[in-house]
């Protein structure tokens, strides 16, 4: 299935992209970020276990156990620093 993935702030710069369509065999948020980390390089570094990042699914914060469905908009970003 295909997901739309968005990146923000430091992760957008690290990955050199603001968004992409990603073919994913299906599973949870944790499985998606593991699949992305498997690309190596900045992906492995930024999405390594123990690194702090946040994931939103369809514009709502989502824990790692959240299941993903085809067409979901998934955003991956650093902890927020507004206000």
């Amino acid at each position, binding site marked *: 299935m295909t997901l739309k993935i*968005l990146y*923000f*702030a*430091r992760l957008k710069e690290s990955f050199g992209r603001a968004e992409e369509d990603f073919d994913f065999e299906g599973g949870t948020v944790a499985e998606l970020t593991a699949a992305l980390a498997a690309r190596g390089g900045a992906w492995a570094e930024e999405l390594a276990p123990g690194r*702090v990042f946040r994931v*939103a699914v369809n*514009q*709502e*914060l989502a824990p790692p156990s959240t299941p993903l469905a085809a067409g979901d908009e998934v*955003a991956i*970003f*650093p*902890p*927020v*620093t*507004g*206000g």
Partner: protein
Amino acid sequence: MERFTVAVQTAPFDAGAELARLSADPAVGALVSFTGQVRDYGDSDGVVALELEHYPGMTEKALAAIVDDARARWPLSAATVIHRVGRLALGDAIVLVVVAAGHRRDAFAAAEYLMDYLKTRAPFWKKEIGHDGSARWVEAKASDEAAADRWAGEEA
């Protein structure tokens, strides 16, 4: 009047006008405002401006959800949250929260709650711009997480 509003904008806001707007309800006895502005020193030296990035679409939803949470916890007459994005210079206002309620304890608690959750849940990111043009992403503070967490186990 729309009593509960959120906005994400590049333009400056007028805190006095928002206070006046939310005060125009005979049930309101207490108004609390919070304004955050760019200080002359951030986490590093020589900062001359901030760049505020956000996640269009999610930002407005997240702010509205935080306002809904506050309404569920305290009896509020009105509330507004305005957050600016883009480039902001030293001294520029970043964020405004105004809460109107019958009683002051509710207004204070809700305003502080809105800020604590905005700082940990709303998708904004600050980048510090140095006088030499350098740029550095601001790191999230553990103290902000702790501030939000303190509401979790507490009845309003």
